[in-house]
């Protein structure tokens, strides 16, 4: 990690550590902790997706499906089979990774539009299954009574405990993803992104790597789904439909595809937009999302984080040349 990124990471950790306390000061902000728990859960999805989209260059419109597989995995194993929630979380992740392998192996041979449509189709199929398998999922009326998590024999109660658990996991996944990106694998991924054929010629196992990254993104999404299930204790198919897959893509794109920081920033920003600031508009929400996505894709295609970095860098550059001229 560069010094700058280390500082940023340290600052993020401290900020997260004190966030629930800060939010607790004023009554009007105290529910921000709850919003941030959701932002953390979604961040787990978008960090994986960022690796897949920004670095391997493969779009997936099925992340809500993997999010849902984790959530319903947790729900079904705990409610119908009375498993320990952590075992259910692990089982959900295993199911997700198996399905990602099954679907990813043929799907990731496809490119661009075809891949987008294949993942889109897969996502819709999973959503239909959630609606139809009423005996297991409760269908459209939902699945309730999912138990919460306990850590070291103590049940997680209260927003603060959940906040630290979720964001602790986000930081772990962030560090791990970062580590992957700066390893051989990461360089290979970048090579795939730039020119698949050249990467292949240089001996990069393109097909295998793409499937592995897809599986990784499925696992983080599935774990996020399990956390979601145990946190809210009630699931309905509406939380895992196509619109949610698009929302996840939107979060990654807004922050910046080619930066893990972008995924974090975009996710937190859009979770607040959706959960907090758009509540007033309710029905306008979908229009606002479409508008944001269009504007970002057309005018700031590299995303907010990279764009801001560029702005700061340019200003600093200007200042430096200015002071040079003065001396």
């Amino acid at each position, binding site marked *: 990690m560069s010094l700058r990124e280390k500082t940023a990471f340290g600052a993020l950790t401290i900020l997260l550590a004190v966030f629930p306390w800060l939010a607790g000061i004023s009554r009007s902000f105290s529910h921000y902790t709850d919003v941030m728990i959701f932002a953390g859960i979604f961040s787990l999805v978008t960090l994986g997706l960022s690796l897949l*989209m920004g670095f391997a*260059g493969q*779009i997936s419109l099925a992340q809500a499906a993997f999010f849902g597989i984790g959530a319903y995995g947790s729900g079904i194993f705990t409610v119908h089979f009375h498993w320990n929630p952590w075992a259910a979380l692990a089982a959900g992740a295993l199911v997700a990774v198996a399905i990602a392998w099954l679907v990813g192996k*043929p*799907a990731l*041979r*496809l*490119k*661009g*539009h*075809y891949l*987008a*449509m*294949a993942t*889109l*189709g*897969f996502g*819709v*199929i999973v959503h*239909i*299954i959630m*609606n*139809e398998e009423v005996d297991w999922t409760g269908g459209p009326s939902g699945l309730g009574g999912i138990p919460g998590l306990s850590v070291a024999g103590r049940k997680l109660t209260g927003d603060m405990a959940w906040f630290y658990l979720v964001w602790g996991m986000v930081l772990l996944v962030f560090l791990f993803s970062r580590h992957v990106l700066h390893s051989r694998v990461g360089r290979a991924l970048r090579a795939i992104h730039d020119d698949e054929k050249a990467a292949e010629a240089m001996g990069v196992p393109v097909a295998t790597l793409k499937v592995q990254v897809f599986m990784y993104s499925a696992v983080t999404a599935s774990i996020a789904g399990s956390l979601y299930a145990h946190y809210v204790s009630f699931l309905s198919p509406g939380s895992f439909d*196509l619109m949610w897959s*698009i929302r996840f*893509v939107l979060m990654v*794109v807004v922050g910046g*595809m080619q930066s893990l920081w972008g995924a974090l920033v975009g996710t937190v920003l859009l979770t607040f937009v959706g959960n907090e600031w758009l509540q007033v508009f309710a*029905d*306008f929400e*979908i*229009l606002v*999302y*479409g*508008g944001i*996505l*269009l504007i970002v*894709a*057309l005018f700031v*295609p590299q995303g907010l984080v990279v764009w801001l970095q560029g702005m700061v860098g340019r200003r600093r550059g200007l200042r430096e040349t200015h002071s040079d001229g003065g001396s």
Partner: protein
Amino acid sequence: MGDFFYGAAWLQYALGGITIGAIYALVAIGYNIIYNVTEIINFAQGEFVMLGGLFGVFYHQTCGLPLAPAVFSAVLTVGVVGLFLERYVIRRARHATVLSMIIVTIAFSILLKGGAMLAWGKDPHRLPAFSGTGAFLWHGVAVQPQALWVLGISALVVGILTVFFRKSFYGKAMLACADNPNAARLVGIPVRTMVMLSFVLSATVGAVAGAAICPITLMEYDRGALLGLKGFGAAVLGGLGQFSGALVAGLLLGLSESFCAGYLSSGYKDAVALVLLMLALFFKPEGLFGSKEAAGLKRF
């Protein structure tokens, strides 16, 4: 033989399947037109269909136009939406990556969907049938005249477009744009105009499909995505870019969906076309009627 046909359930399912399949074929043709000229897949294609139906309702019921002018105006309006999409969105992103192009058309489709929800609400709307209100019996099977309209219109559109792209000067010029835009420009083809034309044409074909199906299945704001996805399934299965292939594949998808709904499970009928789409993508991406070499040359 007569007994086999008379009032048979399968005949009723087949009729329903062919009707909806013709719509998938029209959606597929919408994809094909744009793809043939630009090699772009427009993720807002299903939204054009939805808009075609809802604008028909708007002109007929809100503005009080008679049915034929109402449908005509609806198709025209959606054509303008297509023009807008090309002129102000696609053209700006022309040199972007495939990934951004996908995101841009998805964003546009969300805007259309959201706009439709605000304008028409969440309830489904109905247009009256184009002619004749009651169903008539044929071999003991109830036939809605509107189903015949859908079939006739689809056949007409496929025929006209096939001739247009194969024989007419403009059609050939449009095909040249996809093949090699620079070469097309060199021989004097106004590539930008052709690209714009393809979006308008594709939007109008989608709108025709939407208006034609609206009397049978009703139309609401969020139907676009699924219609678009199934239409894309038909386009791929038929070989991307081929009009007659799209027609056959569309009917095939419609029939399998209808038979699944009739004999297996109505809840999973929507999944049938999607499973077929995925199988086609995974194992035969060049489509049932496309050649492998031709598919290899395509850029996705």
